[in-house]
C-alpha cells in the first residue's frame, strides 16, 4: 500500500474576513506527481503556503509524514512563484545556492555545479543573480530546490518566464527526478497540456476543491467550465 505523504484535512484559510480556501481535503501519496490547477486568485499559492507552514490554517490541518509541517520542513524543497530581491545586490549564483547547508559532504561545490547543469545552466556560478534573465533565474531556483535531495518538491508555476523549449526541459527534469529518486512532486501550473502530460493526479481549486483525480477523469470540458467559467480545454498541435 502506498504511504500518504501530505494529508490536508478540512483546511480553511482566511485573510481577515476574506475566505481564500474553503474546506479543502486531499491526500498525496509517496512518489506521486500531483498538479494543482485553477484560475488566478483561486488560492493555489495560499494552499502551498499552508502546506509548507508559512501560513497557519484558520480551520483544519496539514500533516506531512504524519507531523506538523514545521517539524519536517527540512525534507521539503520549494520553488516560489515570485522571488523578490534588489537586483543591484552583488550576490553570485554560487553564493545564493550555498546559503543552505545540510551537513552532507557530497552537497558541496561539485553538487552545485551538477544541479545547475541538470537544469541546463553551464558556467554560471560566478554570475551575479541580478544579471540573470527571468528564465535563467527560474532555473537557478529549481536547481537550488534539487540540491539537497529533498523528499518532497513543491513548485509554484516553475516555468514562469521560460520559453516553450525550456519549459519542456524543466518538466522533463521534474518527471525524471520523480521517477528516478521517487521524490513526491506537487506542481501548480496553468498549462493544462503540461498537466495532462506529466501529472498522475490533478486537484482543481477555486477557493473550494472542485474536483480531483487522474488527468483523464478531471480535465473534462464540464470540470474546466466549472473551474474557469469559460470553454477552456486541451489543444493539440498537428
Amino acid at each position, binding site marked *: 500500500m502506498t504511504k500518504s505523504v501530505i494529508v490536508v484535512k478540512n483546511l480553511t484559510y482566511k485573510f481577515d474576513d476574506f475566505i481564500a480556501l474553503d474546506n479543502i481535503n486531499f491526500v498525496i501519496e509517496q512518489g506521486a506527481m500531483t498538479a494543482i490547477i485553477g484560475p488566478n486568485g483561486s488560492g493555489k499559492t495560499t494552499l502551498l503556503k499552508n502546506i509548507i507552514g508559512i501560513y497557519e490554517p484558520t480551520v483544519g490541518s496539514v500533516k506531512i509524514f504524519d507531523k506538523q509541517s514545521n517539524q519536517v520542513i*527540512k525534507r*521539503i524543497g520549494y520553488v516560489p512563484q515570485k*522571488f523578490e530581491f534588489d537586483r543591484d545586490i*552583488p550576490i*553570485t549564483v554560487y*553564493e545564493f545556492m550555498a546559503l*543552505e547547508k545540510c551537513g552532507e559532504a557530497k552537497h558541496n561545490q561539485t553538487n552545485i555545479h551538477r544541479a545547475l547543469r541538470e537544469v541546463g545552466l553551464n558556467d554560471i556560478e560566478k554570475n551575479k543573480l541580478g544579471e540573470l534573465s527571468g528564465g535563467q533565474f527560474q532555473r537557478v531556483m529549481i536547481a537550488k530546490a534539487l540540491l539537497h535531495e529533498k523528499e518532497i518538491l513543491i513548485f509554484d508555476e516553475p516555468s514562469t518566464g521560460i520559453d516553450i523549449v525550456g519549459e519542456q526541459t524543466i518538466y522533463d527534469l521534474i518527471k525524471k527526478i520523480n521517477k528516478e529518486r521517487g521524490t513526491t512532486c506537487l506542481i501548480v501550473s496553468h498549462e493544462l497540456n503540461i498537466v495532462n502530460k506529466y501529472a498522475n493526479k490533478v486537484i482543481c481549486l477555486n477557493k473550494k476543491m472542485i474536483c480531483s483525480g487522474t488527468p483523464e477523469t478531471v480535465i473534462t470540458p464540464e470540470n474546466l467550465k466549472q473551474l474557469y467559467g469559460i470553454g477552456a480545454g486541451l489543444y493539440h498541435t498537428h
Partner: protein
Amino acid sequence: MIRALVSGIFIAILLGWLGTFVVTRKMSLIGDGIAHASLAGIALALLLGWAPIPVAAILSVFIASFIYFLEKKTKISSDMAIAVMFTTGMAIGIILLHFYQGYQPELVSYLFGNILTINSNDLWNIIAIGLVILVCLFVFYRKILFSTFDPVGAYLSGIKPWIYDLVLYISTAVAIILSIKLIGIILVSALLVTPSAIARLFSKSFKHFTVLAILISVMIVFAGLMASYYLDLPSGATIVLTGTLLFLLSFVLSFVIKLLKKVNT
C-alpha cells in the same frame, strides 16, 4: 587623536559590515530611526545625571525589537514602523530636555558628534561591545545573510529567521548608539549606508561587497577624521561629507567604466 582614530576605525568596521545587510534588506532608514529615537534615552540620562550612552544603548535594543515586532506582527511596513519610532523618540527627548535647566553643551555634541568628547571609558565600551557584535556577525554570517536575502528558503532549511533578524536589528541599534559621540544623532546613519552604496558599484560577489564596504568605511572615517583635525572642522559632518564626496567620485567612475566596456564590445 589616537583615541579618536581607534574608536573611529572600530565603528567604521562595525557600521561598514552591518550596512551590507541593511542595504540588502532595503531598510537604510533604520539607522536614522534608531539614532533619532535614542534622543529620548540621552535626554532622560542627562536629566537624571546618568551616563547617556549606556541608557541610549539599552533603549535602542527595545526600539529595535519594537520596530521588528511592528514590521512582522502587524500590517505596518518597515518605513512606517521606523518613522513612528523616530518621531516618538525625538518628541519624548524634546519634552524631557524642556525640563533640563541652562545651556546644554553636551547635548550639542550628541546631536552633531564631537570626537573630543570620547574618553577612555567610551573607547573601551566601543571595543568591548563592538567585539561582541563582530563575533556575532562572524559566527552567524551565513544565517543572517540567508534570513536577509531569502527568508522563506532560510525557514525551509530549518533556520528560524526571526532569531537572526533580531540579532541583526539589535546589533545595528547598539552599533549606531556607539557611534553617536563620533558622528552625532543627526548624521550617524550616513556611515551605515554610504560605504555599502559605494561598494556595490564595484563588487562581483557578496563576499567582495562585504570586504569592500568595510574597507571603504574605514577609509572614509580615517580621511574624515584627518580632515577634521587639520582643518579644524566638526568631526561628524566632515566624515559624512568625505563619504558623500567618495560616493560621487565612485558613481562617476563606475559610469565611465560601464561606458568604456560598452564601447569595447
